[in-house]
């Protein structure tokens, strides 16, 4: 009897073992695997953005974020008051969130500053916990903010370089299999041969933060001094199309981009369009020279301040009798420009405008570029050729205009502007293959040289409109612009865009710079009065920074140098190849 019972018991045990080990084998293996193994999501930090000399402009750091489990909080209102005082959050919003007892998770405050996180931790509130998130930090504050753009909480690039190069600098998220121990908290890698999460690539910009700082400082000062609505600055290297500085006013702090109105976050040189006014006369002049419609020695009757063109009187800003080609540019005569445009003709003027890149995006590596507006020649009205000759009836971006002047400065080649000079991934630096990239050749070297001489007269000739752009020791070439602003199809009295665009040194240009002051208040609104001086100050600093020798060194140069010579100090991106990057 006992033997039979024992046999039965063993038989049952064996049957159960067979059931567990054979029939349900896969099920229990799966359960064990689920208990012991999990996946760890590794999110690498975004790459760092450096300026041309290696200064950090944008970096990712870890920041503490606080969340709460509402059902663990006994007094939501009291907790909300204490949290609000610690981190500066809205008390009512917090109380509403913490009061939702049905929720197991609510955010309290994300990406806190270290001091605020410490204050919140010190409260030791039950139900309030912490985690870490990657936070984008812009250590130089508002410097080049519209160019850099900003990153959302996700973190995804939402504007500027952060958006344009999002895939490059974001890195790739990696899921690694890991083992969990009995405490379910500690983990170790299941397979050490798994690849690490590749960090985002670092970017090296062409922008020099020192020049950028001066451009922003001088622009902000000019906007404040003249009570203007805003302004912008673009500086390019005419030999390559590299952007050395790009400033907008108003601007914003990307560390707190949510507090800035959307209008302040616009990268004006790339995204805004405006009527260029007299600065556009150079395109008319280029068309006149390039097509052979006008000889540089020709003189023109400037009608004593007005011209009747196809039945309509168009006035000049000043009365001129008889002007040479160069004087039309130097004194910025509208009537003279109309005479030039009329000789060129609609079709050839349109072709030259398009050849300089107006009406098309330049293709700069920034998000949200505008193409401007150039009407097809078939849709031009009878007097459009006259208006276009002195820069009205066309919309361009500041970048397009600066780039067109860069083509004049470098002898006739139109380059594609760019802001990223090199990409560094895992210590290997690569320069984008197509830079510098020539887009075309709108004018010949001969035409470019003739235009350069004319532009020098604007700054140097007695009565030239751009004399305030002069920089001691350097030859400067440039053009002033004072354009009326159109609103709802008509030009508004008292609203102007003052500008100056030029390059220096004139005979061997190192920089091209455009300064725009939007809607200056008061009686001084001409580009030569308020933009040329800003140009001189910014370009003076840039030439100093880049170590560009003067055309006319001061007497006794080298006898008592007060500062070490800066020749060759031009910031350059790291050379392609393997280098140690931080």
């Amino acid at each position, binding site marked *: 009897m006992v033997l039979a019972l024992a046999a039965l018991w063993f038989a049952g045990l064996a049957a159960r073992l067979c059931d567990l080990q054979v029939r349900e084998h896969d099920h229990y293996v799966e359960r064990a695997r689920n208990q012991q193994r999990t996946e760890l999501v590794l999110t690498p*930090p975004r790459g760092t953005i450096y300026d041309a000399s290696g*200064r*950090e402009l944008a*970096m*990712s*750091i*870890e920041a503490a974020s606080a969340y709460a489990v509402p059902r663990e909080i006994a007094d939501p209102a009291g907790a909300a008051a204490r949290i609000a005082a610690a981190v500066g959050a809205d008390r009512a919003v917090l109380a509403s969130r913490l009061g939702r007892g049905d929720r197991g998770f609510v955010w309290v405050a994300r990406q806190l500053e270290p001091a605020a996180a410490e204050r919140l931790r010190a409260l030791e509130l039950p139900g309030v916990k912490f985690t870490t998130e990657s936070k984008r*930090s812009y*250590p*130089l*504050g508002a*410097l080049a903010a519209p160019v850099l753009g900003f990153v959302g909480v996700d973190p995804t690039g939402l504007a500027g370089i952060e958006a344009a190069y999002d895939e490059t600098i974001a890195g790739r998220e990696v899921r690694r299999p890991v*083992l969990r*121990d009995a405490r379910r908290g*500690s*983990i*170790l*890698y299941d397979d*050490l041969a798994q690849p690490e999460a590749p960090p985002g690539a670092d970017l090296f910009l062409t922008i020099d*933060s*020192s020049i950028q*700082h001066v451009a922003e*400082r001088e622009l902000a000062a000019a906007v404040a001094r003249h009570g203007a609505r805003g302004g912008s600055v673009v500086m390019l290297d005419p030999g390559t199309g590299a952007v050395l500085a790009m400033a907008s006013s108003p601007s914003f702090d990307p560390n707190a981009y949510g507090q800035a109105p959307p209008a302040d976050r616009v990268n004006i040189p790339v995204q805004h369009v405006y009527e260029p006014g007299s600065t556009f006369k150079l395109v008319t002049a280029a068309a006149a020279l390039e097509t052979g419609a006008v000889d540089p020695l020709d003189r023109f009757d400037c009608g004593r301040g007005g011209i009747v063109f196809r039945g309509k009187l168009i006035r000049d800003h000043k009365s001129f009798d008889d002007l040479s080609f160069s004087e039309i540019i130097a004194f910025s005569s509208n009537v003279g420009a109309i005479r030039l445009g009329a000789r060129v003709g609609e079709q050839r003027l349109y072709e030259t405008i398009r050849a300089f890149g107006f009406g098309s995006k330049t293709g700069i590596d920034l998000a949200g570029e505008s193409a401007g507006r150039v009407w097809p020649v078939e849709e031009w009205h009878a007097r459009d050729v006259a208006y276009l000759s002195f820069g009205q009836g066309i919309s361009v971006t500041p970048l397009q205009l600066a780039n067109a002047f860069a083509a004049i400065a470098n002898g006739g080649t139109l380059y594609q502007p760019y802001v990223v000079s090199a990409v560094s991934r895992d210590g290997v630096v690569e320069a984008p293959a197509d830079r510098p990239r020539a887009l075309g050749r709108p004018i010949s070297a001969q035409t470019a040289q003739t235009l350069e001489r004319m532009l020098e007269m604007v700054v140097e000739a007695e009565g030239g409109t751009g004399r305030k752009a002069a*920089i*001691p*020791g350097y030859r400067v070439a440039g053009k002033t612009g004072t354009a009326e602003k159109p609103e709802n199809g008509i030009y508004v009295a008292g609203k102007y865009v003052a500008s100056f665009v030029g390059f220096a040194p004139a005979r061997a240009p190192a920089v091209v710079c455009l300064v725009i002051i939007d809607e200056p208040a008061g009686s001084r609104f001409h580009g030569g009065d308020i933009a040329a001086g800003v140009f001189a100050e910014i370009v*003076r600093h840039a*030439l*100093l920074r880049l*170590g*560009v*020798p*003067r055309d006319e*060194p*001061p007497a006794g*140069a*080298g006898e008592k*140098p*007060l*500062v070490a*010579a*800066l*020749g*060759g100090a031009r910031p350059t991106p790291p050379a392609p190849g393997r280098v140690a990057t*931080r």
Partner: protein
Amino acid sequence: MKSAYSIHRPVANVYLVRDRDRRLRRELLSVLAVALPLSVAVLAYVWVSSQVWDKGYEVLRLERTLERSLERERVLRVEAARLSRYDRVARRGHDELGLRPLALDQVVFAGELE
């Protein structure tokens, strides 16, 4: 208390010798031959497993230390960059050291010396 084992008796046959039980020895060796490799294998498995876990924890600890160090370095770089902001340096240079912006005529470029 006396027992059969505690009684001292003289050995009658001086030629009597202890004879080894060869069968028992063979059986013992057989058991050892089976059990010892098994035990070694089990011990080796346990040792290797514990080493894997220990090294796993060690790797994890080192990785976390590395991450903390790199993060600390990043924070310090951000702070260094923040402290070297142009407006801050210019303000302190002006207010505390009395420095003024460099004028062009205070500089001689290398190309101008020739």
